[in-house]
């Protein structure tokens, strides 16, 4: 449930309010309530959008605090589609007519390999030290292993240090902790959109930090450019726009390889973005959670840690996890790498809320240490399987005449279904998504990623062949059977307050 797009659908809406958010009282969050009462502006700017996670919220609870009420509303509005999914999950034997999940970004292709590796005897050690309070940053043996691992796979020019590593239970926690220690309530991070929408909630829950979307266009504007390309100009415009609204921007979030575009930033681009951030004294949080899921070797992925020289090392924070690259989202292992000791210390202090069992820490250290298995067994096999699944879905989409983006990284394809939306509205987009769900296939719609053009969908292909084929078959049925989508939505729409004003 963690990565589910409905959750993402409560992602920021584009309603830049008046410059009311300059919180003079830095210590507490009546910002939230203030935001709630803000009216969406009519003029939607094209270049950026200030996220407002609580737009549309209206509820009062006798038992919860006002922020508690908002948090509960997060939960309720998140549930809609996924409650449906969880009540009717596909199972080959028990529920063959259940819903196929092409919405959650999980790699289900290599469970056999992982299960075998995690069951080997070296994984099963239990010793007293692992059962007691650890160093909050994570056990030293694991931090050392993470430093070695990242040095190797990120191809860092110099060895990375265990002192700069903090271990948490997943990247969601890293986002939450960073937002809290870097920003005051109501301050913001820039993020190129479309983006993995759950981040909105990660930075908001505890930190009460907002996201300012840097809108990217699907249209190609000139030679040497590609769809949804991020440029420094766009970053500058968005930053200026946010500033002009009185919103203090503290940092920039980059996801590389990108989710949902499957795109990769070249070292030159990365350098430019980092220089931009340095000029404006912004922190850069680089989420590299898909770094080993680049299955097309020609793509030439480069980690930010591989750069010869970081423009502003004290403000560059890298995160990685095993959720995607090792297909273990349920294991809850994530890590922060930062040279900034203050940030590392402050984040470590928050680790008491984001801790990881000592036994699992041991297992992770064993796993990351096993280069032979990773290089000779796991990665080649994983990449081959990802490639095969990817090729299949690509083929299906081509057959349907559907344009899509995918550059050989990640678990998903970003598909352009705009031709199925005659009016090109988000309302239609949502209705099409609903139709997919009614036909027992769950996908993610673009709005959940804060995409500003209606009609884009993310399809996850990293699932076993039989489920994938069935899922794609259902997608095809929906698209071929009843296009275009025009008629009324089904009844359960009321559960999704997020899309009311769209």
């Amino acid at each position, binding site marked *: *449930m*963690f990565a589910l797009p409905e959750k993402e659908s409560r992602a920021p809406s584009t309603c830049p309010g008046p410059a009311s958010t300059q919180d*003079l009282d830095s*210590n*507490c*969050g*009546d910002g939230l309530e203030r935001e709630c009462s803000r009216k969406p502006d009519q003029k939607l700017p094209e270049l950026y959008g200030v996220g407002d996670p609580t737009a549309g919220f209206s509820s009062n609870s006798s*038992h*919860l*605090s006002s*922020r*508690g*009420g908002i*948090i*509960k509303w*997060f*939960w*309720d509005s998140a549930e809609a589609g996924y409650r449906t999914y*969880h009540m009717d999950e596909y199972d080959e034997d028990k529920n063959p007519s259940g819903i196929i999940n092409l919405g*959650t970004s*999980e790699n289900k292709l290599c*469970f056999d390999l*992982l*299960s075998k590796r995690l069951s080997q005897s070296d994984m*099963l050690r*239990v010793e*007293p030290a692992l*059962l*007691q*309070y*650890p*160093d*909050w940053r994570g056990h030293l043996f694991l931090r050392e292993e993470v430093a070695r691992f990242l040095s190797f796979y990120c191809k860092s020019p110099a060895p990375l240090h265990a002192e700069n590593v903090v271990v948490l*239970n*997943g990247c969601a926690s890293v986002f939450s902790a960073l937002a*809290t*220690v*870097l920003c*005051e*309530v109501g301050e913001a991070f820039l993020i190129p959109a479309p983006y993995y929408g759950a981040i909105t*909630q990660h930075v908001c*829950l505890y930190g009460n930090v907002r996201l300012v979307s840097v809108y990217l266009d699907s249209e190609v504007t000139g030679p040497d450019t590609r769809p949804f390309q991020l440029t420094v100009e766009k970053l500058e415009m968005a930053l200026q726009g946010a500033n002009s609204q009185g919103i203090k921007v503290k940092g920039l979030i980059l996801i590389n390889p990108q989710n949902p575009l499957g795109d990769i930033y070249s070292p030159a681009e990365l350098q430019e973005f980092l220089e931009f951030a340095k000029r404006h004294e912004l*922190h850069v949080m680089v989420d590299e959670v898909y770094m080993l899921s680049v299955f097309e070797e020609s793509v030439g992925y480069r980690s930010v840690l591989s750069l010869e020289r970081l423009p502003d090392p004290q403000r560059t924070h890298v995160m990685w996890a095993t959720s995607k690259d090792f297909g273990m989202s*349920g*294991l*809850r292992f994530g890590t922060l790498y930062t040279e900034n000791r*203050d*940030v590392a210390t*402050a984040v470590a*202090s*928050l680790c*008491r*809320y*984001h*801790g990881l*069992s*000592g*036994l*699992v820490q041991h*297992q992770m250290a064993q796993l990351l240490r096993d280069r032979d298995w990773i290089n000779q067994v796991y990665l080649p096999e994983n990449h081959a399987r990802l490639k095969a699944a990817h090729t299949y879905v690509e083929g299906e989409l081509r057959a349907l005449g559907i344009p899509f983006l995918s550059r050989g990284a990640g678990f998903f394809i970003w598909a352009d279904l705009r031709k199925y939306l005659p009016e090109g509205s988000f309302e239609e987009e949502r209705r099409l998504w609903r139709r997919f769900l009614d036909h027992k296939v769950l996908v993610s719609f673009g709005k959940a990623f804060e995409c500003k053009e209606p009609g884009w969908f993310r399809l996850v292909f990293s699932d076993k062949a039989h489920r994938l084929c069935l899922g794609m078959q259902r997608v095809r049925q929906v698209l071929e059977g009843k296009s275009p989508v025009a008629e009324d939505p089904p009844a359960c729409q009321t559960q999704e307050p997020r899309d009311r004003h769209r």
Partner: protein
Amino acid sequence: MDETRDGEGEVFPNISADSSSAGPVPVPFSSVNWSGSSQPVEAKTKAQGMSHQSDVLPCDQLRDQVIGNQSSHTQLMETLLHLRQTVDDCITQLMTRPPQLDLPLEEQRHNQATGEQEAFLRRVVNLLQSGAMWGLGLQAPHPTLGPRDDAGGGQQAQLSRQLDQLVYQLSHLEVAFVSRDLSNHGTDISAFERSKFQDFKTYQGDKYHEDKNTMGFINLGVSENKLCTDLMTERLSRSDMNHLEDALLQYSDQRGQPFLREEVARFLTYYCKSPARLDPENVVVLSGCCSVFSALATVLCDPGEALLTPTPFFGGLVVGSYLYSKVELMPVHLDSEITDGSARPFQLTVDKLEQALLEATLKGKKVRGLLLINPQNPLGDVYSRDSLEEYLEFAKRYNLHVIIDEMYMLSVFDDSVTFHSVLSMESLPDPNRTHVIWGTSKDFGISGFRFGALYTHNKEVVSAVSCFGFLSGISGITQYKLCRLLQDREWIDKVYLPTNHSRLKAAHRYITNKLKALKIPFLSRGSGLYVWMNLKEYLQPCTFEEELLLHHRFLGNKLILSPGKTYMCKEPGWFRLVFSDKPLPLKLAMHRFYEVLAEQKRDLRVKQLEDPQKE
């Protein structure tokens, strides 16, 4: 207790009088020490003689210097306290400004500037209050380092060194604690980490080990049960623990895996003696009780709102309320003295709750709930069923939530003590506002597992807290192991609990006998992993500063205990000692404990003798 109050009150009256005057000020620590005797002269001569050999200073000059050092140390302490009070006042002033909503731009800017000042001041206050400078600097040098017969002279030299360090630290205050990269909140968090957990870090680097590091720190400060690691290790190593299936490696229900929530509900039904079966839908599991508390505080209180909590109480939850959720705690101070309304020391009464609530309300604090720990930490106390009922009724009267932390419910090792879980009550006065926290850290001695559970009838709270499953989720593999563990009633009832209790009992007996031999008063009612003892006899004067110095003296002797200040205890001199360690380290720890107290006693005697000279 009277002495305690004297000691406490004394520091403050001196502040205004002395902070302005310069030069050596003959204001010694306490008038109690002035009781005349003939020995001071002798001691003085001795101190001078010792220093004379090394420093070759004229007698008068030396004397001035020695006394000057000591009194300017006192003075600096007082200046600090004075500064703290001034800053506090400033902030109170700033905070009590009436809210100004529609101000012209000019004025808003002014306010922003004040806001920044305020933020800085707040940081300074935090720093002072946290005792960060003690943690950082005054740790290394200890009187124990000097030759035995030189205690007096050594201490003077000590003080001058400490003074230098203090000045150094103050001048580096901003550099050290205000980072340009962190937000104000981030800076608070960072400073907090550095101060409060300095001891823990020192310990991590130099832990005692039976074979490898017998000279290392023995930690009787952190409440961990290390007595049954053999049983746990054996149980966790059995093959049933190592099951793996794809669901465990994938995203799960944010509230926790259904199988684990079901098991937790069954487990609590049984061990809390719940009259009706508990419902798995009311369970949320997160990575540790800290996470549960923090999430709960966040959804029940807005920033700046408060929870009432009887003190002394476990300081770790302060972390929980402060770091992320910015919820405040309103102490309900309990007295060690037995009065009309109470039958035992530190007894919580509804009167005290009422009074604290009233005081908070007068201060303009919005109180949203009451936080109880049962069995209590650090008192080791267990609330009777009647008291519990009274507290819950009190909360209901004022529409307060009650958060009950029952982390030690299975660590009641004295058979004559009966623990009543709040979940065992026939009917809760206000079920929608009663929230129970339990975890395996203490009762199963596996704090490294990071598991905490919430049980509440309130569906809204369940939903809101579940949102934090994103940020405080537990690994599927761990959830499976926990489920197996909680399921194994046979092992828990026949093997684990009896062994654990008998070992706790033995360790407890050993420690309490030692304390009795030393004539140290303590509280302990047969539950928890610690005793709460009173060392005020060893503090002269009885102040929190002296308490901290004694704490550092223990540290200097590689022994970690927790001073009462950490528990917001209002009387200086109390310490919590955790006894749930193996016999060998426990024995060594008590040896170190004894050594420190003997030294402390010696120094007190010397100090007593010296003080009259300054007249």
